């Protein structure tokens, strides 16, 4: 056997062993029993607040929907990214086209582990990398609320992704790197208000998904948390919302609260793009929650523009 052949064979052997390890490492992980037990029974009234705080309607209701149309979760919003176009699915209560038959456990595994009921990986265009920080009981409440929403017929179109991004299995490795649920910033002894703000921003509010820069394979860079980023979809930049250079250091907490409630910035420009829908969600929350978000944004480290 020539040395070349030997080398090739060992190489192939390593590749096969490596492949098996990769296959194993990329296996979908679901929630453990303790997390599932923490789901609890679920309260639809509280779930409505969770629904608005977590912005499901921004992607799963019709684009630009207002009023009650935001509760019609037929999907269809197209998210154009460098990896291809993702189309948000129907998550209405329709038993065939939506998620009518789902249990709270199914929803928790989807939102906190990015795993579907049949055990495949979801793409992180569904922002479970933020939702993983949510309290399981909030997800149970959200599930209870969602069961009160209408059934809408019609499946949304499929994603338009090129190889290798159309291979869901590979996402397992990506998730090992970026799905950890650790806080994005470490805060020393935060007040109750700041801790609430941290929960809302880093968890359900998923503000970091748009406002934090990403690396080449799409992981958010927590060292530049909320420092602003090139927009994942379309063109332009998402602004820096830290107190650093280029950010919102000169905004008062009241200015931030006013923006989240009305969409107006301190110079009475009105935010548009993807933020318009975020404002419609945040406007549904109690004033104390908007104040908590503002207090948190003022408490975290400032960074210069991340784009």
């Amino acid at each position: 056997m020539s040395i070349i052949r030997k080398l090739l064979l060992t190489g192939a052997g390593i590749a096969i062993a490596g492949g098996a390890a990769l296959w194993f490492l990329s296996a979908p992980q679901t929630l453990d029993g303790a997390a599932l037990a923490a789901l609890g029974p679920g309260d639809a009234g509280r779930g409505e607040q969770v629904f608005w705080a977590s912005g499901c309607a921004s992607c799963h209701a019709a684009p630009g929907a207002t009023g009650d149309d935001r509760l019609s979760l037929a999907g269809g919003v197209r998210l154009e990214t460098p990896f291809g176009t993702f189309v948000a699915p129907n998550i209405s209560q329709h038993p065939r086209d939506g998620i009518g038959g789902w249990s709270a456990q199914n929803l928790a595994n989807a939102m906190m582990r990015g795993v579907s009921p049949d055990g495949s990986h979801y793409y992180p265009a569904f922002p479970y990398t933020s939702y993983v920080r949510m309290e399981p009981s909030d997800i149970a409440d959200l599930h209870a609320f969602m069961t009160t929403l209408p059934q809408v017929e019609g499946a949304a179109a499929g994603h338009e992704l090129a190889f290798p991004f159309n291979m869901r299995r590979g996402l397992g490795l990506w998730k090992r790197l970026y799905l950890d649920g650790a806080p994005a910033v470490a805060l020393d002894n935060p007040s109750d208000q700041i801790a609430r703000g941290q929960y809302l921003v880093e968890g359900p509010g998923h503000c970091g998904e748009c406002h934090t820069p990403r690396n080449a394979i799409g992981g958010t860079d927590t060292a530049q948390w909320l420092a602003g980023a090139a927009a994942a979809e379309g063109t332009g930049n998402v602004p820096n919302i830290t107190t650093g250079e280029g950010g919102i250091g000169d905004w008062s907490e009241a200015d931030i609260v006013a923006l989240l409630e009305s969409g107006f910035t301190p110079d009475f420009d009105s935010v548009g793009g993807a933020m318009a829908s975020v404002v419609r969600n945040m406007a549904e929350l109690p004033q104390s929650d908007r104040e908590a978000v503002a207090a948190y944004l003022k408490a975290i480290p400032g960074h210069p523009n991340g784009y």
Partner: protein
Amino acid sequence: MKLFALATVAFSIMVAGASADPIADRKENMKERGALMRILAPVAQGQQPFDAATVLDALEKLSANAEAATDIDALWPAGTESGDTKSSPRIWEDRAGYQAASDKFAADTAAAVEAAPQDIDAYRAVFGPVAANCGTCHEGYRL
């Protein structure tokens, strides 16, 4: 050759005459809206006292401003899609939709002037729909 150069100059003056710089003009139009909202919004939010005359004056100016921007061919002509602008390409792709959004803003502002609100509740009732136009249009047609 000389004639051609002259013709070019004349042509650019003609174009310039039509509108010096539509991108600058439309930004100026928008900035004026911001300035008027600075007067109108704090009253609606209860941070400034309601005064019927002040409010009506600002609403009239906003109405004139909105009316001016319904001429979308003057402010968003073909060829001004790129440059120092945050206008979305959708303005040119969906001309009818953008015209309708501009007309709706003008109609809502005109209705507010027409209503000439005399107390804070009447004012809030007409101001809400006016202000909603800003975010809705920026959501769809601004980058």
